[in-house]
């Protein structure tokens, strides 16, 4: 098990701009702006209208994106908790 499953809003709910390796993201449902560092934008994209837990996310983004952590699933779980607090993902 890799913790609870989450889901994010569909891709058209956000507008994202790359700024020097960070991502400025406008979240349309809340009208809030967020500045995200990798792998948060990749996690959001992996969860857009498609629920998954940390292991599932790792499987979805692992091919294209390398998570630099001893325990990648745990690192993703930690980012998920932050994204939940920011209102960008919710429990599925």
């Amino acid at each position: 098990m890799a913790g609870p499953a989450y889901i994010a809003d569909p891709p058209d709910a956000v507008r994202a701009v790359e700024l020097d390796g960070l991502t400025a993201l406008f979240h349309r449902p809340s009208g809030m702006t967020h500045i995200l560092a990798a792998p948060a934008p990749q996690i959001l994209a992996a969860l857009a209208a498609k629920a998954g837990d940390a292991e599932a996310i790792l499987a979805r983004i692992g091919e294209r994106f390398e998570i630099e952590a001893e325990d990648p699933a745990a690192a993703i779980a930690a980012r998920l908790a932050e994204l939940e607090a920011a209102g960008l993902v919710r429990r599925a």
Partner: protein
Amino acid sequence: MKHRLDLRIGPVSFRIGSDWRSPLDALRRLYETYPEPDPVADFTVRLEAERVWRRWLRPSVAIRGDYVLPDAAPMALAHGLLAAEMGMNLQMALGQKRFLLLHAATVEKDGRALLMTGESGAGKSTLAALLGERGWRLMGDEFALLDLADGRLHPFPRAISLKNRAIALFDGVAPDRLGPLLADTPKGTIRHLRPGAEAIARMDEPAPPALILFPRYDPGFARAIRPVGAAEVFVRLTQASTNYVALGERGFAALAGLVAAIPARAIDYADTDMAAALVEELWDQ
């Protein structure tokens, strides 16, 4: 109201009403070379007696208008000109919806604009005024108006409010460009400076931005130039905007477009000549 004055500054028209004649007389003198105002005002500012009898007895000016800060302290009538200027600032800060409003100074050269923003006291207003006397076109010392559609900056060349030690730097300008010396205001001693003739003549002429500077002033600073990452520029400009949140996605798009396209630097300086030299050096790069 008893007295009235209409003003147009760049793309924004104001109607200023007052219970007293003196603040409007001072304002009229300061803006006498500005073009004819539009018949319809974007914003209304009212300088009102706090209580009816306070129109005569220890007169005290309350700043009112389309948008009001409930806890704004009334000001002495002697500072009525400052109250009018603050009233115009307030209407812009709270009510402007056509542009992304950045608390920043803007100057233009060679058809391109330099945007300077920073904490209060960073000296951006003084620096912009100084550059305006040294071959740059002053577009505004207080608010930069970012066009939501095409990303250009629109001039808003209000009278510059010179504060405390900055006042002496402009002793050499034509006396008719200076307002009265206002002592003991909430911001210290203030004197307004009318921008140069070119700034007023070209106040309908926007310019695309070319450089963003974050100046920092301290008499003890050594001269320094630092790059600023785009994400930091973005965050600092959202903080420098009075209407970023209100504009929603349009504000995000305009600001992201600006930040992605325009280089930014932070500069430290110890006096205005050093700052002006730094600006010229960065502009030439």
